[in-house]
């Protein structure tokens, strides 16, 4: 996909208009040149080489491409890269801290919330956004929040358990540090 980022124009008569986009991705400011038609998911995957964001369908249904845009989950295959200009994007690669995993990541591993791993990044980011907003969700609230992300291997029971596990862990940690409540 080099032509979409660097090699334009190929010839004078084929000058493809490109735009410069600055996005803060996982805390780091990245500036790239893109064609307007480039999808955000493709910019993240092929331009920024963050391949943890997957593309599963074409119609904004599966949610494998979910990233956080200014903290809220969006389907990055249903946004243009140019639209992310000036915004903050968090991908699965930005979930973990320097040394430790995010509780949602730990939860998915501990409760066997994944099998093939393809829907997992999207699921985890949606879950993170849910817990940021609602630290103590019910099972139904988790199911509702995840209903824009499809999974084929795991079914949803263990995914829901993973999110509840993470919620509990996060609450416990907040309790220890005296934060929250």
């Amino acid at each position, binding site marked *: 996909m080099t032509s979409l980022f660097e090699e334009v124009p190929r010839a004078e008569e084929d000058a493809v208009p490109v735009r410069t986009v600055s996005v803060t991705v996982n805390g780091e400011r990245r500036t790239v040149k893109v064609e307007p038609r480039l999808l955000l998911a493709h910019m993240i995957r092929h331009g920024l080489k963050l391949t943890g964001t997957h593309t599963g369908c074409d*119609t904004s249904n599966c949610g494998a491409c979910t990233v956080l845009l200014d903290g809220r989950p969006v389907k990055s295959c249903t946004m243009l890269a140019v639209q992310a200009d000036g915004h903050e994007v968090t991908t699965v690669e930005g979930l973990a801290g320097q040394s430790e995993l995010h509780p949602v990541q730990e939860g998915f591993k501990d409760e066997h919330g994944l099998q093939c791993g393809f829907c997992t990044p999207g699921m985890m980011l949606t879950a993170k956004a849910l817990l940021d907003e609602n630290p103590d969700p019910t099972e139904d609230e988790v199911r509702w929040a995840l209903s824009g992300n499809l999974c084929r291997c795991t079914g949803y029971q263990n995914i829901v358990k993973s999110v509840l596990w993470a919620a509990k862990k996060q609450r416990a940690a907040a309790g220890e540090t005296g934060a929250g409540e």
Partner: protein
Amino acid sequence: MYPSRFGYESPRALDEAIELLTRGQGEAKILAGGQSLIPMLKLRFASPEMLVDINNLPGLSHLTVDPDGSLRVGALCRHSQLERAAALAGPFPTIAAAAPLVADPIVRNRGTLVGSICHADPQGDWAAVAIALGASVVAQGPSGRRRIPVADFVSGPFQNVLAYDEVAVEVVFPAAAGTAAGGYLKLERRVGDFATAGVAVGLERSGSVVTRAGMALTGVGGATIDASGAAQALVGGELTADRIARAAEGAAAAAKPRSDHRGSAAYKRHIVHTFVTRILTRVADDVERAA
């Protein structure tokens, strides 16, 4: 799936956007939430020459109740804002009922009510709600603003009456005179599915007497169907079983469904009847309980 090439502008002022649309001569398309448009670009069902991205326009994200009680929903107000606005449940119960049923939770973070009405999908949710509540689109063009009732705004499947140089800046839902009541029900096979059939009902009542009734249907015709005619059976009296039955029958008759893999025409008509009955019966129960 990769969109074909298009030009792209993201104006910072409404006038600038209108100027770009004017220059586009009908070949420019507005990009707001993009949750219907971008999939269509990817499937190459749509190939506009130019996209005018209005996401950076100031002052369009509002969800405001005016002093007169009417609700203004800006062109950049996302579905999720409506879903989270707990205060809507009293004055606008139909909106509150519909908001969580639009698409899926992630799409709701991006998609907009105004964009959805402009998109005029015959299986969409918001046009039905807006018609049932007598809402209007406020459109701004080079020569100023105009208000278009949503019932007149949707002109066919995926068609609206906006001129190419106009931007739908907001949708205004009028305040209920008296107490607002109503609801929204749709049959979908899973979250994010298009409606097999859906019914929006907006009522105003004074005590137990219905003073205004609007109704619209989705998924059962080439475009959203205004069934307010059938709802007139409810006006001027209490929500009796007889009136409810007449409204339900009227709505079923107004539906123009086609048989497809979501169900037969007869079934969809039956669902309209059932849902109208259910919404109205629930309202009647609430009224009785309140009394």
